[in-house]
C-alpha cells in the first residue's frame, strides 16, 4: 500500500497545477464521454420508438420470440455486477487492493456469464432464422414489422454486448493495476471511472430488457 | 404593380409565373429581398464608414472602453426579430396552403422511377415525362417512387415535392397560364438525375377535356405511353441521348428493359454497350451499335442466354434516326462501377384508399 505522499507527486501530469484539478478533469471527461455513449444508443432508441409505433402488432408478436428467462437472468447478473463494482470503488478508496482485485474478478465473471447467455440466445435466433431484415427466414411468424424487430433487437443488443466486452477489458486492466497495489485514499480515479462506465453499461441493459423482452 | 413584378422577376432571374401561388411566392420573395438588402447594406455601410472614420493614427493608440447600453442590445435583437418573424408570418401560411389541396381537384398519380416521370390519371391515360393539365383548374399530384427518392420540381409553379418509395406524398397547384414548362428532378438519384426531365403542358381547359376524351376512347393504340404530338416531336431539349430516352419511353421499351441494372423481362440497358454478351446458342458477341440496332429490328435472331424471345420487332416502327438515338441513349448508360451486382430496388407497395 502506498502512502499519500508517495503517490501524489508521481501521478500529477506536468500541465496540471494540482492533483485535485487533475481528478476533476478526469471525472468530467468521463461524464462527457458517457453522455456521448448515451447519444450513440439514442439513435437506436429512436429507431425502436418509431418502428414500434409503425408496427405495434409485429413488434408485440416478435418480442414473444425473445428468451425472457435468459434475459431476466442476465438482468440479475448485471445488477449484481454493478454492486460488486461499487464495492470495488469503496475498497479502492481505502487502499484494500486485494479486495478490489477479487471484486473486479467477480464483476468480469458476471460480464462473461452475461455474454455467454447472450451468445446462447443469439444462437437460438440464428438457428431459427430470426434474423434482421433480408436475412429473416423464420417460418413461424411473418408479417409487417417482424423482421424490423429483429433488426432493432440485434443492433441494440449487439452494440450493448460490444460495450460489455470493452467494459470487461477495462476492468481487467484496472484489476491488474490493483494487483500491483496502485490504489489508495489519494488515488483511486481509474477504479471510479471504469466503475462509472460499467454502471452505464448496466443502466442501458435495464432499459433494453423491458423494451425488447417484456413490452 | 405588374411592371414592378416583371422588373423584379427579371432582376432576380426568376422564371415565368404559371400560377397564382407562384406569383404570391414571388411577392414574398421581393419583400424579403428588398428588406434584407436594405438591412444588409445599412449594416455594411456603417461598418465601412467606421473603417474610414476610425483609422489608426499611431501604433499604440489607446481607445475608450465602449460598453453597450441595454437599449443597444434591445435594438440589435428586436429589429431583426421583428423582420424575421414577419417573413415567417407571411411564408408559413403560404406553405400550409400549398399542403392543403382544395376539394374537387383533379388527381394525377405521379411515379418517379430512375430516370423518368410516369403520370397516370384515374380511369384515364398514362404518360411518361409529359404531364398535361388544364389551365385554371386545381390539380392534385399524388406521388410515390419506384426506387430511390426523387423530387418533382416545376420552377414555373415554384413547386417542389419529394417522391418517396413506399409512401405517398401530395401537393397541388392551379396553373393559369397555358404553355409548356420544364419539370426537373431535384433530389439526387444517380446517373440520370440531370436527364430526368419532364414537361408540364398547361392546356386551355376545353382542349384538355377533348384530349382526355380522345385518350379514354382509346383512339390511339400507343396512347398508353403518351404519343407525342407533332409539336413535341420537335425536341427542344437537345441532345440525341435525351431524344433516345424519350423515344424509348414512347415505344414502351422500359416495360421490359430497365436502365438501372435491375432484372426484368429483357436484359438491362445499364452498361450494356460494349459488354460481351453470351447468347442462347452459346456464342459470345460484343454489344456494339450494330448488335443493338439488329436487336431492335430482328429481336429473335440473337437472344441473350437466360431470356425468352418475347420481344416484338420494331422494324417499321422505328425510323433510322430513332434507332440511332436509342442506341446513343443505351451507350450513355454506364456506371463504370467496380462491383456490378444487380440492384435490389425496394418493392412498390400500393396504398389503398380514396
Amino acid at each position, binding site marked *: 500500500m502506498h502512502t499519500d505522499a508517495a503517490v501524489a507527486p508521481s501521478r500529477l501530469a506536468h500541465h496540471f497545477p494540482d492533483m485535485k484539478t487533475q481528478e476533476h478533469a478526469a471525472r468530467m471527461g468521463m461524464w462527457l464521454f458517457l453522455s456521448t455513449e448515451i447519444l450513440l444508443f439514442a439513435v437506436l432508441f429512436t429507431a425502436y420508438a418509431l418502428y414500434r409505433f409503425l408496427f405495434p402488432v409485429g413488434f408485440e408478436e416478435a418480442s414473444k420470440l425473445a428468451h425472457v428467462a435468459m434475459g431476466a437472468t442476465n438482468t440479475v447478473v448485471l445488477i449484481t455486477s454493478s454492486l460488486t463494482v461499487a464495492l470495488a470503488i469503496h475498497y479502492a478508496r481505502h487502499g484494500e487492493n486485494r479486495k478490489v482485485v477479487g471484486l473486479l474478478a467477480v464483476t468480469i465473471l458476471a460480464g462473461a456469464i452475461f455474454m455467454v447467455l447472450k451468445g446462447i440466445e443469439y444462437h437460438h435466433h440464428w438457428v431459427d432464422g430470426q434474423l434482421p431484415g433480408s436475412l429473416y427466414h423464420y417460418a413461424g411468424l411473418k408479417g409487417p414489422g417482424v423482421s424490423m424487430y429483429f433488426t432493432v433487437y440485434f443492433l441494440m443488443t449487439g452494440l450493448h454486448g460490444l460495450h460489455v466486452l470493452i467494459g470487461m477489458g477495462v476492468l481487467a486492466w484496472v484489476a491488474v493495476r490493483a494487483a500491483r497495489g496502485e490504489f489508495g485514499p489519494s488515488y483511486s480515479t481509474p477504479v471510479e471511472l471504469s466503475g462509472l462506465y460499467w454502471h452505464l453499461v448496466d443502466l442501458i441493459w435495464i432499459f433494453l430488457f423491458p423494451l425488447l423482452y417484456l413490452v | 404593380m405588374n411592371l414592378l413584378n416583371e422588373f423584379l422577376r427579371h432582376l432576380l432571374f426568376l422564371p415565368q409565373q404559371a400560377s397564382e401561388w407562384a406569383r404570391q411566392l414571388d411577392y414574398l420573395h421581393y419583400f424579403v429581398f428588398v428588406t434584407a438588402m436594405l438591412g444588409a447594406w445599412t*449594416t455594411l455601410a456603417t461598418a465601412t464608414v467606421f473603417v474610414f472614420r476610425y483609422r489608426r493614427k499611431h501604433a499604440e493608440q489607446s481607445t475608450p472602453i465602449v460598453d453597450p447600453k441595454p437599449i443597444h442590445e434591445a435594438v440589435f435583437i428586436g429589429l431583426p426579430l421583428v423582420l424575421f418573424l414577419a417573413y415567417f408570418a407571411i411564408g408559413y401560411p403560404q406553405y400550409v396552403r400549398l399542403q392543403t389541396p382544395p376539394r374537387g381537384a383533379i388527381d394525377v398519380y405521379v411515379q418517379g422511377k430512375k430516370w423518368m416521370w410516369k403520370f397516370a390519371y384515374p380511369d384515364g391515360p398514362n404518360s411518361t415525362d409529359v404531364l398535361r393539365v388544364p389551365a385554371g383548374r386545381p390539380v392534385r399530384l399524388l406521388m410515390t417512387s419506384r426506387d430511390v427518392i426523387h423530387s418533382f420540381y416545376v420552377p414555373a409553379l415554384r413547386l417542389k415535392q419529394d417522391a418517396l418509395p413506399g409512401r405517398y406524398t401530395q401537393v397541388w397547384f392551379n396553373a393559369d397560364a397555358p404553355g409548356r414548362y420544364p419539370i426537373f428532378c431535384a433530389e439526387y438519384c444517380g446517373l440520370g438525375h440531370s436527364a430526368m426531365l419532364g414537361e408540364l403542358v398547361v392546356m386551355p381547359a376545353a382542349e384538355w377535356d377533348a384530349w382526355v376524351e380522345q385518350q379514354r376512347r382509346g383512339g390511339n393504340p400507343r396512347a398508353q405511353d403518351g404519343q407525342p404530338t407533332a409539336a413535341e416531336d420537335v425536341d427542344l431539349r437537345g441532345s440525341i441521348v435525351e431524344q433516345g430516352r424519350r423515344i424509348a419511353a414512347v415505344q414502351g421499351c422500359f416495360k421490359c428493359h430497365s436502365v438501372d441494372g435491375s432484372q426484368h423481362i429483357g436484359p438491362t440497358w445499364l452498361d450494356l454497350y460494349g459488354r460481351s454478351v453470351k447468347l442462347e446458342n452459346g456464342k459470345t458477341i460484343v454489344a456494339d451499335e450494330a448488335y443493338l440496332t439488329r436487336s431492335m429490328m430482328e429481336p429473335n435472331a440473337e437472344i441473350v442466354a437466360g431470356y425468352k424471345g418475347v420481344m416484338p420487332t420494331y422494324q417499321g416502327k422505328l425510323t433510322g434516326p430513332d434507332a440511332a438515338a436509342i442506341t446513343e441513349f443505351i451507350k450513355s448508360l454506364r456506371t463504370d462501377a467496380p462491383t456490378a451486382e444487380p440492384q435490389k430496388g425496394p418493392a412498390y407497395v400500393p396504398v389503398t384508399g380514396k
Partner: protein
Amino acid sequence: MSQSPASSPVYNEPNYLDAEKGLRSWLTTLDHKRIGVMYLVLTLVGFFLGGVFALLIRLELLTPGPTIMDAMTYNRMFTLHGVVMIFLFMIPAIPGIFGNFFIPLMIGAQDVAFPRINLLSVYLYLAGAAIALVGMINGGTDTGWTFYTPYSTTTVTTVAPVLLGAFILGMGSIVTGLNFIVTVHTMRAPGVTWMRLPLFVWAMYATSVIQVLATPVLGMTLLLVAFEKVFGFGIFDPARGGDPILFQHLFWFYSHPAVYIMILPAMGVVSEVVQTFARKNMFGYKAVAFSSLGIAFVGFFVWGHHLFTSGQSTFASGVFGVLSMFVGLFTAIKVFNWTATMYKGAIQVSAPFVYFMGFLYFLVFGGLTGIALSTVSLDVHWQDTYFVVAHFHFIMVGGTIMAFLAGLHYWWPKMFGKMYSERWALAAAVLVIIGFNATFIPQFLLGNMGMPRRYYSYPEQFWPLNVASTAGASLLAFGFTLILFYLIASLVKGRASGPNPWLSRGYEWNTPSPPSLQNFPQTPEYDRGPHEYQDGPAAAEVKHAH
C-alpha cells in the same frame, strides 16, 4: 510585477519548434502547439484535395452537356468534394489548428486537459481520412456527402468504407470537443474568469458542446447505413417497412448542428481579429459570448428545415422554420456587435482585417439567405437548387474560410515567428474576395431560375451563369495558390515578426512568438480582461504569481 512578459528573462528556453528535432519528435508529441501545427498541415492537404475536386466540378459545368468527364465520374467528384471539404477540412480545421494552439495559451494553461487523447485525435483523423479516401476512390462512392437512403443502400458503388471513415473522423471530432470542454472548465489560470474568457474560447466551447452531443448520432446513423448496405438489415429500406425519412432526420440531427461546428469557431476567430485590428474591446462581450451558446443550443432543434419538401407535417415544418429564425437572430446580434466594436476604434487595415470585412459581408448575405430559406414557403422553390448551394457556400467558404484565412494571417507570426509579405497578402485577399463573389453570386441566380443541384448536364438557359461561376472559381483557386506560396516563402526567408507584431492585448500574445515549449514559466495571473486598450502602451497585461 509590471514587465513585458515576452521579453522576460524567464522565457529563455527554446521555442516549441526548435525544442526537439526530427520526425519522430513530431509524431509522438503531446504538445498542443505541435498538434495544432500537424492539424494545419493535414487539413490543408484536405483543403487542397477538396479544392481540386471543386475545380473539376466547375470545369465539367462549363458547358451544358458532357465537358471533361462522364456522369458517373461527376457524381463521384461532387461526393468527394463534399466529404473531403466537410469532414477533412471544415469540421477539424479551426478547432484542430487554432483551438489546439490557442485555447491553452488564451486561458493561461500549460496544455489541454488530456494531451494523449489529443494526439489520438490526430491519428483518428489520419486513419479516418485514409479509409474514407481510399474507399471512395476504389469503390467510386456516388451518393453525395448526404448519403440519402435508399439511394446509398442500393447504389452499385461501394459506400461502406467512406461511412466507416466518417465514423472514425467523427470519433476524432468528439475527442477534440471533449478535451476542450474539460480544459476550459478546469484549467483556466487565476483571473481568467468566465467573463474574461477570450471570445474565441467561448466560441470553441460552444462548438465543443455540439461536437460531443451531436457527433455520436451521426456515427451511429452512418453505421446503420453501412449495416443495411452490406448485410441488408432493412432499417431504412421501405420494402421491409423501413423509413428512409428516418435517415434524413437522424442525419440532419447531426449535420445541421455540424454547420455550427463549422461556423462558430470562425465567429470566434473574427471576434479576436476585430478586437486586435480595431484596438477595441468587444462591444457587447456578453451578447457575443452567449449568442454562441444560443446558436449551439437552438442548432439542435432546427434540423427539420432540410425536410420542408419531404412530406413532413406542416406543423413540424412551421416549428422548425420559426426556430431556424433564431439562429439567424443570434448571428445578427454578433454582426451588429462586431460592427459596433469598430466605433471609436483605431483601425489598422491589414490582411487579417480585410478578411474580417470579407467575412462580415459574406456572413450577412449568407445569413439573410438562410433566413429567406427558413420562411418555409420560399424554400419550396429553392430546396435542392443552386440557391441552397450558394447559400451554404456563402456561410462555409465566405464565412468559415474567410475567418480561417483571417486567423491564419493574424496568428501566423504567433505560430511561426515569421512575417509574410503584407503586400502579397493584401493582393491575395482582394483576389479571393472578388473570386468568391464571381463564383457564388451567379449560383444564387441559377437557383432562382430553378437549376437543381448535383446536375451533371443542364438545359441551355443555365449556361451563361455557369460560365460566370466557373470563371470566378478559377480566380478563387488562383488566390488560394498565391496565399500558399507567400506563406511558405515567409517560413523560408520571412523576417522575424517579434513577439507581438500587431501590438495585440489578447492573452495569447503574452508569450514569445513562437511560444516556448512550456507555455508559461509559471502560471500567469490576470487582473483585467483581454483586449482592453483604454490606457497607454506602458500598461502591463499580466503579472506572474510566485
